[in-house]
Each structure stands twice: as structure tokens, then as C-alpha cells.
């Protein structure tokens, strides 16, 4: 854990959603930080940006995106990265994150986070890309383990080994999504605690929590409900292993009232504080 006195992001925050802009500005709920979805603020102007300007003065923020397409075999999209950089220059997030996935190939975007095959070829490729991105942005990024619904036959390592190797080789940090680890463990038949054994604790700077949906033969990462009990259990194990890392409640479909998000964050906050006291 890289805990220093000037770190502004601590405790359990919530994802900022446009439905809640006005209420957050008016009521200023007691959450320690907010995560902002980069793609929602690429407009040239308008209310969303104006609201964010106000909200940014009230809370420390992080930027979380889905657009880097880090795993893609296309050239990096420097137009996108330039927009991201100017967004970061304007709103000064504590850090920026994206996913260990690809969303485009042949210049066409599918707007869904597709998994990489866990091969040496893919590892070398994505490490080189993260290097380029970090050079361009002039800062270290966090990469998140995505939820996945398929695995490839030619995999040469496990996904937790892949995440660890990418982070170590590209010297980037990790956003560990506990829910995604749980969903993948269930979908692909492994123990989610493998992740806890593999992750380099010092690189894990943020944790994500969200709700999944149970479909016929698989779990789907909807971000559309409360965090499930087994995910809370895995979260507990996670902070015991890697420390009280800043934690975020994500909610993207069927977005509820702000209080529901705040209550979920309070639950995570309680777990973080209990850990801090017992440590």
C-alpha cells in the first residue's frame, strides 16, 4: 500500500451518475470521493461538464474509462487519449483507470469489454500499449480485471497471473474489481481467492464493488443491483490481504436513488474502518 499523507482518495466512494448531479450539488452527501466515467464528459460543452465543474470543487475524484482498448491490435487511438488527457488536466483526478480488455479491432468499436487470450503474445502486446499510454499521459494508470463470459483455448496462463504480469511488466497499478473476480470464478470454474494470492498488494490502489445478475448458466455483471453477500465476503478477505484500499460502489443500470448508493458505500466504509482498527 502506498499510503501517504497527501492521498486525497480514502475510504468508500460512489460512481458519479448524471441522474444524481443536481442532488449531489445541492445536498453534498457524506461520501469521501467520487468516480467519474470519462466517456460521459467528452462533450465540447453543456450541462454535464458544467455540473462536473461544480462537483469537482466539492469532492476529490478519479477518472474511470472504457475507451482505451488497451488489448486491441489496432494502433492506439491518440485522439481519444488526447481528449482524456485534457479532461484530466481540467478536472485533476487522483488517478485514471481503464480495463485489461479490448473494445475495437479494424477501427470498429463494439463498446463491450472483450477478454484477451492469456498468452505471452497478448501479454507482450498489452504491456507495450500500457507503456505508450503511460508515457503519453505522463502518469501511471490503473488497470481493472474485467468480467468475462468466455475463455480462449490457447490460454497459456490464468487470468490472475496475466493481470499480475501485465502490472509488473508495465509498472502500472491495479484496480481490483472484486465482483468481476467473483463472477469470473463462477463462470470459468476457479477459486476467486487465487486472485488474492496473485495480486501484488502494493499495486492495488482501488477496489470496485457492484452487483451481478444470475442467469441460467452464468453470472452477468450488470452493475444493476446491490453487492451480493458472497462478494462482500470476498471483499472482506481482500482487504484483510491487501489492506483498506479505497473502494468504489459501481451502479450503471437501473440506477437507484442516491441514498441506496451512499448506504452501500457506508457498508464498505464500515468494513474498511474495522480493518484499519484491527490492523
Amino acid at each position, binding site marked *: 500500500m502506498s499510503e501517504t499523507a497527501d492521498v486525497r482518495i480514502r475510504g468508500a466512494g460512489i460512481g458519479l451518475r448524471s441522474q444524481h448531479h443536481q442532488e449531489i450539488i445541492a445536498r453534498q452527501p457524506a461520501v469521501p470521493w467520487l468516480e467519474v466515467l470519462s*466517456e460521459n464528459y*467528452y*462533450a*465540447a*460543452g*453543456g*450541462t*454535464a461538464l*458544467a455540473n462536473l465543474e461544480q462537483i469537482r470543487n466539492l469532492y476529490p475524484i478519479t477518472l474511470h474509462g*472504457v*475507451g*482505451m*482498448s488497451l488489448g*486491441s*491490435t489496432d494502433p492506439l*487511438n491518440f485522439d*481519444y487519449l488526447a481528449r482524456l488527457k485534457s479532461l484530466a488536466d481540467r478536472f485533476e483526478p487522483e488517478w485514471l483507470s481503464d480495463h485489461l480488455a*479490448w*473494445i*475495437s*479491432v*479494424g*477501427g*470498429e*468499436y*463494439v*463498446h*463491450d469489454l*472483450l477478454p*484477451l*487470450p492469456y*498468452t505471452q*503474445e*497478448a501479454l507482450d*502486446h498489452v504491456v507495450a500499449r500500457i507503456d505508450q499510454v503511460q508515457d503519453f499521459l505522463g502518469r501511471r494508470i490503473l488497470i481493472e480485471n474485467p468480467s468475462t*463470459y*468466455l*475463455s*480462449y*483455448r*490457447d490460454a497459456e496462463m490464468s487470468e490472475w497471473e496475466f493481470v499480475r504480469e501485465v502490472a509488473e511488466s508495465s509498472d502500472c497499478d491495479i484496480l481490483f474489481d472484486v465482483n468481476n473476480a467473483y463472477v469470473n470464478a463462477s*463462470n*470459468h*470454474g476457479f477459486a476467486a481467492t487465487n486472485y488474492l494470492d496473485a495480486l501484488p498488494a502494493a499495486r492495488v490502489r482501488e477496489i470496485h464493488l457492484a452487483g451481478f445478475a444470475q442467469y*441460467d*448458466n*452464468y453470472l*452477468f455483471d450488470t452493475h444493476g443491483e446491490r453487492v451480493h453477500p458472497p462478494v462482500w465476503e470476498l471483499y472482506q478477505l481482500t482487504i484483510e490481504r491487501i489492506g483498506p484500499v479505497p473502494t468504489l460502489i459501481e451502479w450503471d443500470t437501473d440506477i437507484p436513488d442516491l441514498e441506496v448508493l451512499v448506504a452501500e458505500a457506508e457498508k464498505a466504509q464500515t468494513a474498511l474502518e474495522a480493518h484499519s482498527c484491527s490492523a
Partner: protein
Amino acid sequence: MQRLNQLQRRVREAIMAADADGTEVCAASETVNATHGLSSPEHLRIYRRAVTGTFTRALGQLYPVTMRLLGREFFDGMASRYMRITPSHSPDLAEYGSSFAEFIEGFEPAAGLPYLPDVARLEWAWHSAFSAADETALNIDGLGEVPESDRDRLVFALPASAALLASQYPVHRIWQVNQDEWTGPEEVDLDEGAARLIVWRRGYDMRIDPLQDNEWSLLSDLTGNVPMRVLSNKFPDMATLLPHCVEHGWIAGFQLAESTD
């Protein structure tokens, strides 16, 4: 990287191909593990459904009146046809869907609602205005200080958010009665006549203003950077028409064109 590139292309084709049981899905299935309860093609179809959902939801949010006029199910069906033949070229999903109106024009099952493409055009203009650049350098205030000798060289600009839209149908009325907050009568007489509109944003306030013929002609010319010298000959009522348009906010700025003399 060649193997990875080939794999990504196969997976993308499996996800975007029109046929969920077609050769594209079969080809990509060879690279994907089967698991307890799910075959390889079924794993790919999870992504097909997710991606279809992402695109149709995005289009539904962008074109809510179009969706309301067609009903959710019909709209989703149409949107999923559109997304299969219209790739997205930007990581920003908000940039997707600009050609939806043209697609609807050729979409036979929706031909019974001939005004639909123009409704979609109106919604795209609204979407674009919503996120357009803020007017920070409103320079129209200095208009009175331009010396008489330079007036012929004046070129005017509409607000950055503005789009002009003409339709033979009363699309503004159709749009209005399909807003959630609308409480008036929901019938619109299609013979009510043509609509000429400017869709724009004043500050953060979204606006759709109907235009008179002369207002429309002037503003259309302005989008083509036609200089004052030409405009004053074309519009005999320029002395009142111009201040009128400025007052409404439809003209946001001006500059002086290079002298052509």
C-alpha cells in the same frame, strides 16, 4: 501479434454478424472453451446479446421520441438492424447514430410513418446541441461598433450548438406531444404544414424555435458564410430582420471577411 489480431477479428465478426448461428460464430467458436452448461457458441452469444443491448439502449436514449412513436419492441428491432450494418468508429458511444435518420428512410417496415426520419433528424440535432461547445466568446455585442464602411464585409455565425431543420411534416408538434411532461392533446394533424426549425442551446437551456420563411432563409445563408454585401441585396427587410434574429439569440457572432475589392 498476428495471431492475436486474427483472433480479435474473428470474435468481432462473431459478435457483429447478422446471423447468430452463422459461419462467423462457428469460426470464432473454435477459439473459445466450452464450460459447464455452455457451449462455445453460447459463450459468444452472451457477448452478442450484450453488445446488441448496448447499441440499442444508446440509440433509444438518443432517439426517445422515435422510440415512443414505434414502441419499444419495434424500435429495438430496427436499432439492432442498424447497428449490424453501421459500425461505430469512435470509443465515445455518444458519437454513434448520426446516420439513423437515413437508415429509417430506407427501412421498409417503418414506411407507414413518413415523418419518422425527420423526427430522428430533430432528435440528433437536439443531442448535438446538448453537448455542443459553450458560447464563451459572444462577440455579437460589438456589432454596433463596426464602421459603416466595413458593414458589407460582415459575416455572421449561428451559435455553435445550432442546427437548422426543415420538414414537410409538423415535426416540432410531433416532438412536443411526445415529451413526458406534455399534458395537452396528443393528436397532431399531419396536414398542419411544414416545419422550419432552429435547434440550439441558449446557455444550458435547450431550445427548438420555429422560424418564419425569411428568418429561415437568412439563417440558412449565414451557415454558408454569405457576406452582408450579398445579404442586403437579397433581403429588403434586413434592417429589421438582422436585429430580430440577433435578439432571439440565433446569431451569436460575426467577423469581417477579407475584402474582395
